[in-house]
């Protein structure tokens, strides 16, 4: 539906755009011709490079790459290669599950892209080779800012390409969900809401109770009591199997949400779209406690500590909780 009020705003824009002049048209036409030629050559070089490598592999295996012999081979293959022998570079598919840490995500990307290393990916991030408007200027963490999912790349893939696409995807998803209005909707900055989303993701990877967990977190923040989520310990120690012992609980770090109030300094996982959505749109309720209540991953929510303790007994009897606290 066209909104006449908006249409009028656009009509008021009377900026002069001159018609396409013939010199400009000439430039466009010849640039297109040059570019087509360039792309054809590039494809031929790729094929020829592959051919030369194959030849070098069997015949001149010991020649260093700068050896004139190899150059000649490459040239020969190049001149004989025609478009009919062109084989496209096969596309690269990358799959990144939700909820990963950067330390898990980067090796997984490197594993799926031929010739790409984790070190190259890290270098791009460290040297600010990509940008995200959601990243606080004083932060050196990229945690949570690369969106998980399935990505496909045609042709050769550089570290920068993958990371930029994942970062853009995050901005796009966050933008669609309304993260730019996070402050006015929740009272927390977009980065803080992202941090909450990452905690929901880490706590409740697959369940349907995300919006209620979000509410518990907001309620606890509002009361200025520790949020009490334990998955931040796993993140801080970079250990999925971490046993939350007394000594872990008592060690004060910015990620110890049993001791500290407020949020951890960074997100603690790459949240799914569902968790991002839940963090921005918490359910209504006064709950400040939640815990696993059935074997299917269902949670029990309450604001009453007696109810909470009673449920804790039940859940423990069902074997859903560790024996000791």
């Amino acid at each position, binding site marked *: *539906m*066209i*909104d006449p*009020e*908006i*249409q*009028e*705003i*656009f009509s*008021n*824009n*009377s*900026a002069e*755009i001159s*018609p*396409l002049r013939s010199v*400009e*048209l000439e*430039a*466009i*036409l010849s*640039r*297109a011709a040059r*570019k*087509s030629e360039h792309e054809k050559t590039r494809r031929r070089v790729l094929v020829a490079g592959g051919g030369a490598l194959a030849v070098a592999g069997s015949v001149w295996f010991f020649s260093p790459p700068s050896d004139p012999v190899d150059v000649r081979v490459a040239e020969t293959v190049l001149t004989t290669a025609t478009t009919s022998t062109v084989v496209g570079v096969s596309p690269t598919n990358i799959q990144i599950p939700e909820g990963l840490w950067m330390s898990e995500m980067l090796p997984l990307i490197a594993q799926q892209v031929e010739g790409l290393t984790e070190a190259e990916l890290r270098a791009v991030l460290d040297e*600010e080779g*990509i*940008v995200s*408007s959601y990243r606080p200027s004083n932060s050196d963490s990229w945690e949570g800012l690369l969106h998980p999912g399935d990505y496909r790349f045609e042709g050769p893939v550089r570290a920068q390409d993958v990371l*930029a696409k994942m970062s*853009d995807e995050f*901005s*796009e998803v966050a*933008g*669609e969900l309304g993260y*730019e209005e996070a402050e006015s909707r929740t009272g927390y900055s977009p980065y803080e809401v992202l941090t909450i989303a990452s905690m929901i993701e880490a706590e409740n990877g697959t369940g349907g109770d995300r919006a209620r967990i979000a509410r518990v977190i907001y309620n606890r923040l509002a009361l200025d009591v520790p949020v009490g989520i334990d998955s931040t310990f796993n993140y801080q120690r970079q250990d999925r199997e971490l046993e939350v012992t007394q000594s872990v609980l008592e060690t004060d770090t910015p990620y110890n949400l049993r001791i500290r109030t407020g949020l951890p300094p960074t997100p603690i996982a790459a949240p799914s779209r569902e968790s991002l959505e839940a963090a921005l749109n918490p359910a209504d309720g006064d709950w400040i406690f939640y815990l696993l209540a059935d074997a299917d991953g269902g949670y029990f929510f309450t604001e009453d500590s007696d109810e909470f303790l009673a449920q804790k007994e039940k859940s423990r009897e069902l074997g859903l909780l560790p024996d000791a606290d």
Partner: protein
Amino acid sequence: MARDEKWIEAECVRVYQPLVRAMILYAGDREVGEDAAHDALVRLVMELRAGKTIENPAGWAYRVGTNRVHRVARRRGIRNRLDPGPKPASEFDIADGIVLRRALARLPKRQRAAVVARYELGLSVREAAASLGCSEGTIRALTHQGATALRADRSLKEGRQRD
């Protein structure tokens, strides 16, 4: 279908002005918008010469141009080049679309892409969906969200009151 060069040239001329106008609004910057429009036309010529059928050349070039704008913006490491600062808008800014560009720069990019496609390029919902590669429902939602934000934008209201 074989394309003769005359036809391709005529297509360029026909698409050029609406495309530049839309790209400037999308980019928020005249120079970036014009460059993106030129690059998109180069692509369009290449595709047409290769015999590809493009149903809606303006919509197709618009999509290419928006991608181009993102690449430029990423290289420069900036999001919105226009400072939406407190300086009051002049009559000139309104007529020249600068106020509108600033207001659009405040929208998330997909909303901005949809709003410009619908209101500036005049694409139908179906055409805009084909151009931006998403469903018609998404176009409707994005356009609605974008239009709602523009309607609430005070800088645009001031502009209208002055008219």
